[in-house]
């Protein structure tokens, strides 16, 4: 029976495609072989078949990855480490900034807002160059690539996290603030035991998105040769002159890290319980 396609019927993601029972499998197969899908897929397959140079494909040697798996794994670990470190520092700074903003001290607010807007509204690559090449000319302190990379990532993440933390703090129900005031809790107790734990829960989903975008952003550190995944992969592909194999695997590595991060965030969200 033909029914009008409604939005709700087709709101499925990759996870929903996995069938649950044998009958489910049959239905899934029948649904999957929907004529429109098949036509589109065949068209795409023919397009790819014609574009690809098959003699090149035959010369691909993914064995090179096995030879270089150790540096690649270390570099992937470094990518995760750098991002995690930058986000952790950024989170602390961001929460402090958000609390300072909530205190509503006239002049300070303008300064903090300016700080946040400046780091949010310029590209990471400009910030990287600015920190790495620009700052040492003014301060006289020259930083290593790793230090400047970490610094730039931390500065930008602190601005984004200040915004997220501000939204999280403002989303804590007003009753909680009133209760803290009625109990005349000291400011420190109010923030650390009442407001922040609830705000942190609210912050988990945007934090996960930010983690993914900073994992992607950390690939830019390859421009400064920091020594993380992008640096190492360009180095290996220059050395072996097999860019396709290396780059494909590195792209898949990043994809895997990001998918894992998204998954962990949703698990963490469930673990922390629905806010409010």
């Amino acid at each position, binding site marked *: 029976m033909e029914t*009008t*396609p*409604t*939005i*709700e019927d*087709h*709101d*499925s*993601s*990759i996870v929903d495609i996995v069938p649950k029972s044998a009958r489910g499998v049959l239905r*899934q197969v029948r*649904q*999957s*072989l*929907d004529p*429109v*899908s098949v036509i*589109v*897929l065949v068209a*795409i397959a023919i397009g790819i078949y014609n*574009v*690809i*140079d098959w003699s*090149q494909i035959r010369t691909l040697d993914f064995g090179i990855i096995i030879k270089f798996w150790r540096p690649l794994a270390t570099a992937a670990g470094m990518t995760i480490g750098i991002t995690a470190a930058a986000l952790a520092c950024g989170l602390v700074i961001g929460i402090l900034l958000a609390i300072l903003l909530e205190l509503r001290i006239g002049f300070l607010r303008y300064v903090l807002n300016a700080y946040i*807007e*400046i780091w*949010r*509204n*310029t*590209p*990471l*690559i*400009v*910030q990287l*160059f*600015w920190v790495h*090449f*620009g*700052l040492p*000319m*003014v301060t006289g302190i020259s930083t290593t690539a790793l230090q400047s990379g970490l610094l730039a990532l931390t500065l930008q993440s602190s601005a984004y996290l200040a915004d997220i933390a501000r939204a999280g703090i403002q989303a804590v129900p007003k009753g909680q603030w009133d209760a803290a005031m009625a109990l005349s809790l000291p400011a420190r107790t109010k923030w650390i035991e009442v407001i922040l734990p609830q705000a942190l829960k609210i912050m988990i989903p945007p934090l996960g998105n930010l983690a*993914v975008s900073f*994992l*992607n*952003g950390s*690939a*830019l550190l*390859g*421009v400064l040769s920091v020594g993380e995944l*992008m640096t190492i992969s360009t180095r290996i*592909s220059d050395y072996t002159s097999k*860019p*396709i194999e290396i*780059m*494909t695997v590195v*792209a898949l590595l*990043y*994809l895997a890290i*990001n*998918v894992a991060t998204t998954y962990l965030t949703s698990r963490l969200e469930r673990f922390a319980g629905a806010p409010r």
Partner: protein
Amino acid sequence: MTLIGISEVMRSLPELWVGLRFTLLLVFASLAIGSIIGLFVCLGRLLGRGLLVGLCATYTTIFRGIPEVVLMFWIYYCGPLLGGFRPSSLSAALVAMSLYVGALLSEIFRGGILAVPRGQAEAARSLGVPEFWVWTSVILPQAFRIVIPALIGVAALTVKVSGIASTIGVTELVFEANVTAGQSYRYFEMFTAVGVFYFLILFPMSMIAKGYERKLVKRRK
């Protein structure tokens, strides 16, 4: 050598202007191509069946999950080896950015359409409004209003991502700044100037998005 090299920055303004034009070209072109891709992927996910839905979801996951730098390098260095074509750095950057923007926009379009209350479409259908008009005059106008702030956000993100195209040698703003700064050795001034350029483009965008969002929230109350 004076302490602050304003004159060097002023002297290299013509180069920066050329770079800015390439940046804007990249941004507008990839937004245009990306919104077409996003539209089709979003339609495939919402109205398609079976494998098509999975395919569209996979597209979004892949191109949101791979860093833009890696994507650009892949298309620029591996594209020629796999297919017979030899992309210029500009077209490679354009393809990579369009794919990325398409993935982002497909999610935003989908979110907007799903955010329109179900009753709206049902009411229109039960009044006997043809399916075409249900979409074009009930669902899409409301969805568009909801996604405007997110669309501005994507445009801003595209401006930021366009800076990455300098890594494969597109002569846009960051690239020109690198070259001119290398000549005069005024890295601090040059990158501050470029940062100001980007800020002047991006800050109004984020302010407009924020203001519009506030208006939407107020209207809902």
